[in-house]
């Protein structure tokens, strides 16, 4: 079993959903990201998604876009994100680390070189927001031989059959279910049909499912937790860092 599988075994045994936390690396600084990631992994988050800043984040809402632009202003590169991952790995030997990126950044770095460096840094999985089922083989071909897995995305427009096809062969990973039609960012209300959809998906696939986009409150996390294996909080954490660059206890209470 890899770290992701172990993680979901642990949270299931504890009778709670896994808390998947997203941070844009380099916002407000690399040092602040490292400290926030450390705080999260020490105080309740189970899985960390390390967001790689990109100049054209078409899937992101205003909060994460602004964070990405700020990180790029400081010259944050993929190599910095991987170096940070390696330092987190040293401190948190069991925590699953997921590199969360747009494809061009990985492609420009060189896919093989990226996979080598990610594996060496102790990264477990890669999530690419603009790499659907039809295009992912090129990346999987370099990840799999190095023991890395891939996190497929499922959207509100995705059929159950397609979701199952996306999860196939990635039983050592989890399925990231996008809750809303739209970009990342906190929503006051999640779609009323979300719970049913999560239950249907969970029955249809053999991998854990975690739901994200729009999740910003403990109530939303609890609702998702009733039918999914995990919930993802991203923009709300990034937003919390806008204040003083530090996560406080009240920013971490999601279960």
């Amino acid at each position, binding site marked *: 079993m890899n770290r992701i599988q172990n993680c979901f075994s642990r949270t299931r045994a504890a009778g709670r959903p896994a808390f998947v936390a997203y941070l844009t690396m380099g916002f407000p600084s690399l040092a602040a990201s490292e400290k926030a990631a450390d705080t999260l992994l020490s105080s309740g988050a189970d899985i960390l998604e390390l967001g790689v800043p*990109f100049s054209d984040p078409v899937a992101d809402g205003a909060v994460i876009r602004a964070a990405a632009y700020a990180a790029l202003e400081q010259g944050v590169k993929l190599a910095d994100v991987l170096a940070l991952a390696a330092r987190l790995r040293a401190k948190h030997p069991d925590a699953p680390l997921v590199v969360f990126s747009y494809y*061009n950044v990985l492609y420009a770095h060189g896919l093989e070189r990226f996979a080598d460096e990610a594996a060496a840094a102790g990264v477990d999985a890669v999530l690419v927001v603009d790499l659907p089922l039809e295009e992912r083989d090129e990346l999987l071909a370099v990840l799999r031989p190095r023991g890395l897995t891939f996190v497929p*995305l499922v959207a509100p*427009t995705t059929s159950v059959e*397609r979701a199952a096809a996306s999860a196939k062969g990635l039983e050592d990973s989890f399925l990231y279910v996008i809750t809303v039609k739209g970009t990342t960012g906190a929503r006051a209300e999640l779609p009323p049909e979300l719970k049913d959809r999560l239950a249907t998906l969970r029955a249809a696939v053999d991998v854990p499912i975690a739901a994200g986009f729009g999740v910003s409150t403990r109530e939303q996390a609890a609702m998702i937790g009733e039918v999914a294996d995990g919930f993802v909080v991203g923009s709300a954490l990034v937003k919390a860092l806008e204040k003083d660059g530090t996560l406080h206890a009240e920013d971490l209470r999601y279960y």
Partner: protein
Amino acid sequence: MKKGHYGPYGGQYIAETLMTPLRELEAAYEDAKADPAFQAEFREILRDYVGRESPLTFARRLTERLGGARIVLKREDLNHTGAHKVNNTIGQALLARRMGKKRLIAETGAGMHGVATATVAALFGMPCEVYMGATDVARQAPNVARMKMLGATVHPIEEGGATLKDAMNEAIRDWIANCDDTFYVIGTVAGPHPYPAMVRDFQSVIGTEARRQMLEKFGKLPDQAIACVGGGSNAMGLFAGFLDDPGVRLVGVEAGGKGIATGEHAASICGGRPGVLHGSKTYLLQTDDGQILDTYSVSAGLDYPGVGPEHAYLADTGRAEYVPVDDAEAVAAFDALCRYEGIIPALESSHAVAEAIKRAPHLPGDAILLVNLSGRGDKDMDNVLAWKAAHPPVPAL
């Protein structure tokens, strides 16, 4: 070749939310393409509303002045709305109506595609929202006014370099959020499959007409077919008519801006390398780290850091060649066409004219250079005057 791919280029590198809408679009387009009633309505609107076919004009005085190959212009500038863009927006609006979509969105650079989308939205009675970089809103004010006059809402985008790529980012975000009832009218042969193929097909009327007109009027095919390339829709439309004619050289002209060496240009093939943006794998202007660069060109319509994936493929295979023309050369060609032919061309199209002016003197008098005059230049008056005020005079032809 894998469906939707052009060699290693093209594909569907896009958010999962859009994959199902893209499949629906692909199915609807394949269905429409094979439906004679759809094709007949498309052709009828092109004839009765756009004013097709657009003529070929022999640029007699310009040719005589240069003393070499004959320069022949395909007059897309004479289309309703003043550019080739409307060929595509009519096709996509017909498809949107067929799919039961209620709302059109578009990105625009120079504003010609925005105007063409706003036009068909009015024609078909659909609401229309256009995303446009704030920089372009400022330098293409006449087109912003036209879009508003036609009933469209224009959203200025302040992010990034505030030009075409930033507008396209925001249009994609709108589509992700509203894909149930919204049709995204992409203005060029870029984006995820099926857009590059669909836009090429709608624009191929340019090349199909031009090929027939060449044979009728000159009894031969052109030696070279020349068109400017931003995203590359007017070029792909022209090239489509001649891809199977190996004797016709296909020449794409990219925006060299202040010169490729300065880094301030928009020449993705001449100065970029392969990457992934806006749904396609293609040549991109980017940093070593894969961050997309802001582009520069005097012409807003060419100011895009990518290029249609089929152009990337044609470049790699050598079927088409791609060359840069800089701002000064484009402005000189703009002047030349005004003074020698009485035609005020779009600054975008002026890049293609400039390449023809470079080539003609080196070719024999029986050779023909077919230039796609993709748009008219009324929108560019202020830009040309401002550019001239800021630069040393360009030598008059």
